[in-house]
Every structure is written in C-alpha cells, then in structure tokens.
C-alpha cells in the first residue's frame, strides 16, 4: 500500500513538474477557453440580454473543447519516451497510477479554468447566483471531462492522427455533462433550484471516478499491445 502511495505521488509530482517547466503550454488551453468565449459576442450579438441567456452554453462548450485539446497530450510524451510502457510493467495497479496522471492533468488544466470562469461570467453579464452555480458545475464537471476524455486519449495514443478522431469519440460522451451543467446554470439564472442537476453531475462524477480508471487502464493496455 505504501509503495502504491509513493508511486502515485511520484507520478503526480513528475507530471506537475513537467507541466510547470513548460509554462507557455500551460496557458494555451486557458487562452483557447477565453478566445472561444470572446468570439460569441462578436459572432452572435453584443446584446447583454441575449448573452445572459446563452452564457451557460457558451462557457460550457468552450470548457469542453479546451478540456479536449489539453487532453490530447495526456499520454503522448509518455508514449513517445517509453515511460508509459514502464507504467504498464509496474507491479502497482495501473488504474490507480492512471488516476495520478488524470489528477495532475486536471490540476494544470481544469483548475485554472475554474479560476478563469468568474471573469467570463462577468464578460457575459451573468447574474451572481448563476455565476456561482457555474463555478460549482465546473468544479464537479471538469474532473469528469478529464476522466472521460482520458479513455479516448488512451484508445488513440498509438495512432498518428488521433486528434480529430478523439473529438469524434469523446464529444458524444460529454453530452450528458453538458446537459446537466448548462441546465443547472440556466435554472440558477432563472431563480430555480439547482440541487437536482448538481446531484446528477456528482453522481456521474462518482461513476466516472470508479469506472473510468479501469477503462483507461484497459485502453492503454490495448493501445500498447
């Protein structure tokens, strides 16, 4: 057990260090997130009334895409330099080691999105209750995006052009998250209770947290065989 914990922490630490050594790349998904949201007032209409209505969807779709693009390289460098193989050969449970990788990824991509979201809520003129709900849905939802997305990344890691294929595989699986999260934010904006949707998101997160690591590990074994 102790060995497992130290392996888990070692992977987490290594991935975080690697991420902070490339600070420029760290900011890219965030900029992407920001730019997509900026495009909507330009492309649709700057009318605050309309922006307030579409804000939950706009921010969440931008979050989905940003998560997807940042995920693409989750296993890539490990695949290229062979450390992924070492992880597979390790006597520790691969499913648990994979959680460390996903957690590291979430800390450097999901968490910053969470910090940026209030600013975007401000840009789109969201009422404060909706903005808080947005934060909550992002807090529950972005780990979910990382977990589900990692399955697709693990399946496509061996392929040369995995990127567009990844989008095709993963976006349909993101739809329930999108529905419940945007529904909660819209309900909060309309002054209605949001507990139901939040509990649903939490249930999905619990389900993903228990099942996704197993699927990711299985997918990695398939891709490396």
């Amino acid at each position, binding site marked *: 057990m102790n060995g497992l914990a130290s392996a888990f922490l070692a992977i987490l630490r290594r991935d975080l260090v690697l991420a902070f050594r490339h600070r420029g790349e760290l900011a890219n998904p965030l900029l992407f997130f920001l730019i997509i949201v900026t495009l909507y007032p330009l492309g649709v209409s700057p009318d605050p009334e309309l922006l307030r209505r579409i804000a939950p969807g706009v921010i969440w779709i931008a979050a989905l895409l940003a998560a997807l693009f940042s995920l693409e390289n989750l296993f890539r460098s490990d695949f290229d330099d062979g450390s992924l193989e070492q992880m597979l050969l390790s006597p520790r449970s691969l499913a648990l080691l994979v959680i460390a990788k996903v957690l590291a990824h979430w800390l450097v991509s999901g968490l910053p999105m969470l910090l940026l979201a209030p600013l975007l809520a401000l840009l789109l003129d969201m009422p404060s209750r909706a903005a808080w709900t947005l934060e909550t849905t992002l807090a529950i939802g972005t780990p979910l995006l990382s977990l589900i997305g990692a399955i697709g990344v693990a*399946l496509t890691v061996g392929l040369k052009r995995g990127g567009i294929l990844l989008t095709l*595989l993963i976006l349909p699986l993101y739809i329930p998250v999108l529905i419940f999260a945007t529904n909660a934010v819209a309900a909060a904006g309309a002054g209605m209770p949001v507990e139901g949707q939040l509990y649903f998101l939490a249930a999905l997160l619990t389900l993903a947290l228990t099942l996704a690591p197993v699927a990711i590990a299985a997918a990695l074994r398939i891709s490396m065989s």
Partner: protein
Amino acid sequence: MWTFFHKLASPKHFYRISGKLIPWLGTITVLLFVTGLYFGLFKAPPDYQQGESYRIMFVHVPAAWMSMFIYTFMAVLYAIHLIWNIKLADVMASSSAAMGASFTFLALVTGSLWGKPMWGTWWVWDARLTSELILLFLYLGYIALVSAIDDKRTAARAGGLLILVGVVNIPIIHYSVEWWNTLHQGPTVTKLDKPSIHASMLLPLLLMALAFQCYYFTLVLVRARTELLERERRSAWIKELFG
C-alpha cells in the same frame, strides 16, 4: 447443449452452420416483410388523428428499436469477446456496426419525414431525437476508430472498449422519454397491460419489428462470413474448403 455452443464459436463450424441458416432466415425475412407491409399498409385502419401518414411508423419504430438493439447486442458480444476471448463474437460485432448505423440513420430520416406533416417541422431538439442522433455519432465514432487501427485484433479490442463505454448511453436514450418529456409521443407499446395502440396497428408493427430483426440477422451472418473469410484466409479450414 454446451458442445453445440463450443462448436458454434469455432470459425469453421460457424461458417458451415451459418451457410445453412442464411437461406431459411432470408425466406422468413421476406415472408415477414410481405405480411407485415400488407397488414400495415392495407389492413390497419387510418389513425383518427394522423390519418394515413402514421403508417410510416411501421418502418420508423422498428428501425429505432433495431438501432438500440444492435448497440446493446454489440456490447454483449464484446463482453463475451473480452471474457472468453471468442474471436467470433468480435467478428459478429464488427459486422454489425455499419448496419446499426444504417438503422439509426433510417430511424432519423423516417422520423423527420413523419415529423413534417405531424409537427410541422423536419427536426426538433427533442430528447429522443437528440439521443438517436447521439447514438448515430457513437456508431460513427466506433467505425472511425476501428478503421483507423491497422491491426484487426487491436482494432477489435479498442472498438469493444469504446462500445462498452458508450453503452452507458443506451439507458439514457431509453429513460430520456421520462426525463425530458417534450414533443415526442410517449411509449405506447411497452404498456402491455393496457396498450394505447389498437391491436390492428400493433400486429403489423410487431410483424415489421420481427422482419427487421430477421433481416438484420440474415445480413449480419452474410457479413460475418465474409469478414471471417478475410481474417482467416491463411488458416487450414479455408484451404480445405476452397482447395
């Protein structure tokens, strides 16, 4: 009993048995289609609300059922493949994907054609329509993944995992009717104790559903045989069979 299944799972015996089965299944399919269409198009009375246009239901509903059935069936086959490593299960599953996608597409198109006179629009973002569209995306994602991987064995395992992950979507499709009850009419057949569909319409519907089912099994056997020949072309039993 078990020896029969063991035999069926070996490619050689499957090839032989399915070869005998296909003509029978094909004949049953044709008969079911003819009687189902006859009862559906000529015998069933026009609907008191929808007039004659409801008859597209006899294609639309079975296609929608098949789209969900095939996905579930593929998931079961892949579970068998993963647990017992039976090659044949994966051959059957990968031969099903294109047909599943076609049925899904058919359900969407006929639904859209039906929606125009009934709801006055080709498409609405109703829960069931949307889930059916998502199902189509899941099929297409599967097909894209499997065709992107060169090695057939790896492709089969990767596709299987994707299907098992996606099968979570099937209950969502089913329960979406209860969750977001919008424009689409609720289920009318599964309420078996007191169905809100008259027997004269239910009979052709069930006949057509059976016809679609048999059609699928006929074609999937044909496709699986072709796939099998391609994959096993170097094995002894094929050389024996074709000299």
